[in-house]
């Protein structure tokens, strides 16, 4: 589905079903160097089970034009504008990694307009080491290998995004390269990591969220460890949020390494 958002063409995968204004909507937001396709084993199912799915390519990433967001706040502006462009009055937000911060920031601003908030592989602060930041700019292939090694929790993923026989590490590396190559003006790797690193509004944003929150964490996640999510969990607890924490038995590639557990957790949360 193509929409005009902030004056530029934006793409959102709808899971093989046309957008239906009568259905509830879930917006899925990818992380750094990813696109809509990382959600394929969650998005297509939800689209065939009562939801409008808008799995976006963030601006300047793959099929979406426009300036790649330089901050979590700028990306949140885009998500809000996307909902306006699609005519969506209320939506659930699901974000992974950087996308989780974007979803959090958006939910804090749009308040009752957001029905559910799912933070997959989240952390706050989401600091990126100086070495990795530097590598993302000057040695992106080396940095991709680093993050994919950190993201991997198994050498034997169950049937995954491309079906049985998928080598998740290779598939993620290939997607990272494709996303980086999709923007010839900006290094979206470095820009995305910088946005993660600089985001400072996480605790205030969590305090301002009005909808139920699901923390969907990878028990073996080395990129955004479950421990690194505890500041947000604690804030949700202290500010009286309705929230749930689910640990899936994989790492940062949980949508592909634990597709069933990840889908089950999201679906049950959205249904509740």
């Amino acid at each position, binding site marked *: 589905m193509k929409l005009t958002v902030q004056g530029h063409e934006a793409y959102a*995968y709808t899971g*093989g079903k046309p957008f239906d204004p009568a259905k509830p909507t879930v917006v899925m937001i990818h992380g750094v160097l990813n*696109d*809509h*396709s990382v959600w*394929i*084993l969650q998005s*297509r*199912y939800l*689209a*065939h089970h009562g939801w409008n799915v808008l799995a976006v390519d963030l601006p300047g990433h*793959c099929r979406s034009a426009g300036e790649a967001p330089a901050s979590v706040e700028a990306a949140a502006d885009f998500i809000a504008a996307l909902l306006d462009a699609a005519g969506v009055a209320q939506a659930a937000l699901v974000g992974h990694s950087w996308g989780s911060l974007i979803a959090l920031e958006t939910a804090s601003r749009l308040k009752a307009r957001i029905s559910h908030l799912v933070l997959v592989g989240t952390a706050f602060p989401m600091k990126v080491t100086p070495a990795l930041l530097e590598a993302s700019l000057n040695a992106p292939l080396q940095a991709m*290998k680093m993050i994919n*090694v*950190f993201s*991997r*929790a*198994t*050498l*034997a*993923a*169950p*049937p*995954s*995004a*491309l*079906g*049985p*026989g*998928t*080598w998740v*590490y*290779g*598939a993620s590396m*290939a*997607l990272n*390269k*494709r*996303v980086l190559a999709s923007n010839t003006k900006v290094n979206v790797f470095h820009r995305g990591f910088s946005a993660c690193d600089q985001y400072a509004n996480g605790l205030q944003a969590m305090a301002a969220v009005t909808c139920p929150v699901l923390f969907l964490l990878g028990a*073996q996640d*080395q990129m955004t460890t479950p421990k690194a999510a505890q500041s947000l969990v604690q804030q949700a607890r202290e500010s009286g949020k309705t929230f749930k924490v689910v640990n899936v038995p994989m*790492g940062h590639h949980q949508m592909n390494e634990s*597709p*069933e557990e990840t*889908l089950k957790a999201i679906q049950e949360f959205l249904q509740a």
Partner: protein
Amino acid sequence: MSGYSDPHFDTLALHAGATPDPSTGARAVPIHLTTSFVFESSDQAAALFNLERAGHVYSRISNPTNAVFEQRVAALEGGIGAIATASGQAALHLSVATLMGAGAHIVASTALYGGSQNLLHYTLRRFGIETTFVKPGDIDGWKAAIRPNTRLLFGETVGNPGLDVLDIPTVAQIAHEAGVPLLVDSTLTSPYLLKPLEHGADLVYHSATKFLSGHGTVIGGVVVDGGSFDWERSGKFPELTQAYDGFHNMVFSEESTVGAFLLRARREGLRDFGACMSPHTAWLILQGIETLPLRMERHMANTEKVVQFLASHPLVARVGHPLLESHPSHALANKLLRFGAKGAGSVFSFDIQGSREQGRAFIEALKIFSHLANVGDCRSLVIHPASTTHFRMTDEALAGAGIGPGTIRLSIGLEDADDLIDDLKRALKAAEKAGASKAPQGGKA
């Protein structure tokens, strides 16, 4: 620290795609000899058929044992995933049939396995797909052969049987400038010696019957996608970038930014053409892959000794291995292959000075080398290509592939190299005697 660092090739050969079986604790990969898999619910059944969830339905489409094999080969090649097929030829056909239909055109190397040459030259032509053949080293020829309807460039890593090394980076660049992918048959090198995806190829396939299996027991194939080719940017592959009404109007490139080829190949190609692999075959090939690094080391070491022996033998007119500086691919092999020219494989040809009868005497005198139509076995093998693997080719096509009437192809196995050399010595002596008995009076004895 949990998780994995970055396993090396030898570790991946043993572990990629497999963990101890969660239900039984079995350490070795179980053989899932079952046609089908019970659905948890009607909803799960529908979701599996509609690709909303991933899992196994029917073993023609996927199977847990095959999936281990597929993941393992994909890991070793540096790809995004793989599809196991009934044979190497099935992998080639699946690749072609996924990418094109009638009216399309392929540019292929002349130095191909005879079965591949036959498929392209005769069989696919019957289905409206034409092929232009060019010598693998003729870079201008590759460029000149491309037409507006070209959809694929195709060659072997080291051409069968002359071991012409394909200049993968250069041919890949030509392919990409034309907006088409490069498919490489990597059977003779295996991922241990060369990873074509790292050099610019887009798709790689194997006759897994050969080095991956390594024991001459089963027929199988596998195709690996590197996930690097941008089908949408090319604009030449509506099979992957437009709605396919044969599968829920799915746009494969939209479903997966990098995996459209594998999605369609499995969902259409395996489903409709049905050239799938038996789980028992997958299991046997996995046993082979577990020792692939060890076997390839021995293949290389033995080959080096045999090549040196043959090159110095007076009855041998030519040895076609890039180890020798005289071989046209010597420099390219040193540049591309992991271990240089030493790693240009253990399947090579040589020419005996003398008649066709002397060639026959040579083969019949061998005791350790087995005369049969296979390569990449742990046992050493021998064959006469002109009368067997390449017999359908015309003399002109044979010459184009670097094969003469007296060419002998060897596949060096894992026996003691001294025993192999003794066997060859004895057979060459028999060939010499055969020549002497036919020689006119007063001729060379």
